[in-house]
């Protein structure tokens, strides 16, 4: 009898667990700075999605102005304080800056075409230039910085796209390669390889957390390259599963099925990704009419879905960032026109 009761109890538990829905939390945010005001005031060219953006300890904002090869520093009132760099190849110059990281009031800029990491003080003074010790880089993207190391996502010049275990390249402070880690998403074409392996990356306590932009997967590796987790979010979030099914019907969400070359494949799953001081992960997803920020613990387990609101309306979060103190920031919009910075 007791055994039967225990079995029934376990059965009920299992059924309840199966039906358990993910908690949803709504947070109302206040715009700290409107990006469009900067654009109007300074003719500042910011890409609508995936900007390179950061915040320093004073709360000043930094944007990469990619078409003008420079970094613009704004205060909280939206006044331009400093323009750092201009097109060129001398130490102080920038040539396609495409990564920005602030650490201990130093600005680290990935100088993509110059294949260097340039370091400036927050008042714009040039500190140093680290040559990236790689000869066969085809495309360098994303920069993260820890106390001792630099982390980049480098696509290498290879005949095949299958250069696995090379998603993230770890460099020392002299720019020498320490190791390469991370599984890639395999696909048949070089351009598909680039698309599906575009990532966001954060490093906290030498654990490398990341997400693929064009594939619904998050991951974490330790510094030695051992996989801590690798999760397909389709299994966790119904909206992502539906979004993926819809994309698969349209035929561009299966990298293995991609045949054409030199196109841009895939659909954007991850609009922003960051990790806070408690190693909690935040993942911005906008698809199928849903605007969610997934909140996960350090093991990648989903804790809740956050709906960011402004004036009671759902915000499309288009970028996420953690500052040097471990606090989280975002860029969002209600209508694709008025992009604003908020803290949460």
């Amino acid at each position, binding site marked *: 009898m007791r055994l039967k009761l225990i079995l029934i109890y376990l059965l009920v538990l299992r059924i309840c667990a199966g039906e358990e829905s993910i908690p949803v939390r709504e947070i109302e945010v206040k715009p700290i700075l409107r990006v469009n005001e900067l654009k109007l005031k300074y*003719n500042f060219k910011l890409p609508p999605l995936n900007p390179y953006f950061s915040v320093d300890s004073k709360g000043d904002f930094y944007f990469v102005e990619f078409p003008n*090869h420079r970094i613009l520093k704004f205060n909280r009132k939206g006044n331009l304080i400093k323009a750092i760099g*201009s*097109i*060129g*190849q001398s130490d102080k110059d920038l040539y396609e800056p495409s990564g920005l990281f602030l650490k201990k009031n130093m600005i680290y800029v990935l100088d993509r075409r110059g294949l260097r990491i340039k370091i400036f003080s927050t008042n714009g003074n040039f500190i140093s230039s680290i040559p990236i010790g790689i000869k066969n880089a085809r495309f360098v993207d994303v920069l993260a910085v820890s106390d001792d190391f630099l982390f980049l996502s480098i696509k290498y010049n290879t005949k095949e796209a299958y250069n696995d275990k090379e998603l993230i390249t770890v460099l020392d402070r002299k720019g020498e390669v320490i190791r390469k880690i991370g599984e890639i998403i395999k696909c048949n074409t070089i351009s598909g390889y680039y698309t599906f392996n575009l990532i966001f990356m954060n490093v906290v306590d030498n654990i490398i957390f990341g997400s693929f932009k064009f594939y619904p997967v998050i991951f974490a590796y330790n510094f030695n390259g051992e996989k801590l987790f690798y999760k397909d979010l389709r299994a966790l979030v119904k909206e992502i599963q539906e979004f993926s099914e819809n994309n698969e019907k349209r035929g561009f969400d299966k990298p293995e099925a991609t045949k054409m070359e030199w196109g841009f494949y895939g659909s954007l799953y991850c609009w922003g990704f960051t990790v806070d001081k408690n190693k909690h992960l935040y993942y911005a997803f906008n698809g199928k009419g849903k605007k969610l920020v997934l909140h996960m613990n350090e093991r990648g387990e989903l804790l809740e879905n956050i709906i960011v609101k402004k004036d009671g309306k759902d915000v499309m979060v288009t970028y996420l960032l953690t500052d040097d103190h471990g606090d989280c920031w975002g860029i969002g919009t209600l209508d694709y026109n008025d992009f604003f910075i908020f803290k949460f």
Partner: protein
Amino acid sequence: MGFLKRNWLYILIGTLLLLNLVFEPSEISPFPLSPESYQDLLNKKIKGFSVWDINGKLIDTRKFSGKSTFYIFFDPSNPYHKEVLIYAQVLLNKYKRKGLEIIGVIEKDKERALRLVEKGRFTFPVINDFKREIHNFFHIERCCGGVVLVGKGSKTKFISNSLLSPEDIRQLVEKEVLGRINYEFKEPERRDLFKINQLAPRILLRDIETGKVMDFWNFEDEYLIVSFFSSLCSICKSGRRIETLKELDRRLREKGIKAKVILVFSEPYDKEDIENWEKQIKMPFEKYISEDIFTDEEKYITDTSLKVDPLTIVLNGEREVVFAEKLLMKEKKILELIELNVK
């Protein structure tokens, strides 16, 4: 003596030929072997050299000492490269007095380059580097063109092994010759040429097959569907727009509507470019070349991003605009709206 008297003309010609051989400028001999990386060349003094340009004129780069010289490596058959050169000429007109010099460098297609120079009224020399000595020295690959800036002190200041955008070249030129970059530069906007319910402007079209020049009024069809293609329009290049136009053509035929679809390629396309393009994507429509409607030379440079967007318009029998594509309009929407407006 009699021998000399009889043959003095031949002797003179022979001597001149010999002298010409002796004093013919060496082809880039001052260049050392190619360094391992182009970055190793930065800030290095480059010796001057003499070479013939494609017009047979001797170019001595030592004369450019004290000037800012941009070497633009290009492929004369690449429409985008041609576009960049057109802007380079505009920049040269503007900044020549401030010490800007431009030298074009090709490795093949001398005849095409000659035509381009003539058509674009380029005043800068173009060197035929068919042995790829200059290319190899600066690590300029075969596919992509490149830009090298040799500053006033004859030192290399910038090397790119792919061709820069016109806007990047403008910034580099201004930084070099003015010492500052004008970031307030107002980007030209696409001229709003096609206004709904208004007569289309007169644009001259050159038939790529016959060379005949005509305008929209020369077509007898009731409706004229005009799709403008530019060198940067990815929807055009991928063939997606062609598929839309084919589907549109099929639907209109089914309905018995007399409509003609034509493709209009903006300059700097020429017939060969379009034929090369057609080897990859079949374009079963009449093809014309027009003046570049997207470029406003008075503003001396254009944001190339404007050219990324395709443009399809529909004109009725009166040649009034009944449909004009808006930015970011999807292919499906274009089909729907054209069908709605063409009855």
